């Protein structure tokens, strides 16, 4: 029994220890601190992390950004660049217009091939053409379509095949030279994967545009469908309206004739029946 309990309790890892710090009491205290900070600095916005916070409340606010731009998630290493707020034209500001105004951005940066110790073969990608470029040319760079990129990728893949052929040849003549050729293949593969990963942001933007287009089409279709239904309902209403009025008139005339009471009642019933029949016929016609 004890063993069973042990195994069930260890199925999931324990929550991080600081969850116990989030007591109502502590939450109230940090709220107080925030208020007093806002009062003390009326001109400034309250930052996400208050300075000089008591040790016991330190876990109630998010930790600072990594100083060296490195952090770990689920055992994987990530590098970020803490960049100043971006210019308003940049793509992320389109999607998160507010986030850019105050918050410094953590930018996830792809490790370059050189940083990974791999020879960089292709240099055509717009973002790779010379990091020493002047700011003015960096604007022009974003204007470049990616056709060169595709060409470069195709070249790389062709080289891959050629290098394999060479490897097969080398192995048949002098197997000892094989490893050098394998290293070439490796570099090519790394380059291809890197080039593809560089393309990802571009594809992401493209997919976003595609999704929006789809949504737009759907909304428009919906609007047209609603409109046509409304139109139909309106026609039904008009059909009904043109029918009821003569019936009412007839009935009024019959009542005004002021004949025998029983006869009047009989006529009224007949009129009602006829009116009903006409109404249903009209409704059927309108819905058909």
């Amino acid at each position, binding site marked *: 029994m004890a063993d069973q309990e042990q195994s069930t309790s260890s199925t999931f890892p324990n929550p991080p220890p600081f969850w116990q710090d989030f007591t109502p009491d502590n939450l109230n205290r940090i709220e107080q601190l925030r208020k007093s900070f806002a009062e003390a600095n009326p001109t400034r916005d309250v930052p996400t992390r208050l300075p000089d916070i008591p040790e016991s409340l330190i876990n109630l606010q998010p930790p600072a950004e990594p100083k060296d731009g490195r952090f770990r998630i689920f055992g994987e290493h990530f590098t970020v660049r803490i960049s100043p707020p971006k210019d308003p*034209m940049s*793509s992320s500001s*389109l999607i998160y217009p507010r986030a850019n105004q105050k918050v410094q951005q953590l930018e996830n940066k792809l490790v370059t091939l050189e940083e990974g110790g791999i020879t960089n073969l292709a240099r055509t990608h*717009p973002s790779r053409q010379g990091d020493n470029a002047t700011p003015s040319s960096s604007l022009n760079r*974003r*204007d*470049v*379509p*990616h*056709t060169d*990129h*595709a060409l470069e*990728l*195709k070249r790389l*893949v*062709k080289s*891959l*095949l050629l290098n*394999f052929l060479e*490897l*097969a040849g080398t*192995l048949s003549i002098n197997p000892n030279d094989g490893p050098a050729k394998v290293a070439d*293949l490796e570099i090519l*593969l790394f380059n*291809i*994967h890197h080039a*593809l*990963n560089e*393309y*990802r942001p*571009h*594809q992401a*933007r*493209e*997919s*976003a*545009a*595609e999704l*929006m*287009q789809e*949504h*737009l089409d759907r*909304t*428009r279709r*919906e*609007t047209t469908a*609603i*409109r046509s*239904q*409304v139109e139909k*309902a*309106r026609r*039904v*209403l008009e059909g*009904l*309206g043109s029918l009821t009025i003569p019936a009412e008139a007839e009935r009024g005339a019959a009542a005004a004739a002021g004949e025998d009471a029983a006869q009047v009642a009989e006529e009224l019933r007949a009129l*009602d029946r006829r009116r009903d029949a006409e*109404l249903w016929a009209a409704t059927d016609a309108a819905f058909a």
Partner: protein
Amino acid sequence: MGDRLTQVQDAVDQLAQQFVAALYFVQRRHDLETLGPKDKIFTPKQDGQAPPSEVDSLPVDDFRAGLTELSRDLITKEQQIEYLISMLPGLQNSEQDQERAIKELEEDLKAAESQRREALKERDQILAELDQVIRSIRRP
């Protein structure tokens, strides 16, 4: 089935695996040849615990056919990759084009959404009218 970039990456990985498979095939399934009159093909004795042979030879024709097939597969895969690359989304668009397109779409979306709301309002109105009429049929 992922996005197109992932497809390309998977295809490249498959190509690399095919390289390995092709080399392995050549290494294992070739026939043994004598290079000179003095060479003798070593055959392990059939009796007892003979060590497994280094090569598992195929008949010459089968081996040739295998080579052809593998080479054809390699080239097909490479062509596939090139096709996938030329199918990558938005190759002809630059980043600025994309941003412009997204902005336009955003505005169009807003307009379409407000139109939709209008249509909905109209629909509710007509429904209410219709409802009223239907109720009034019963009463006179």
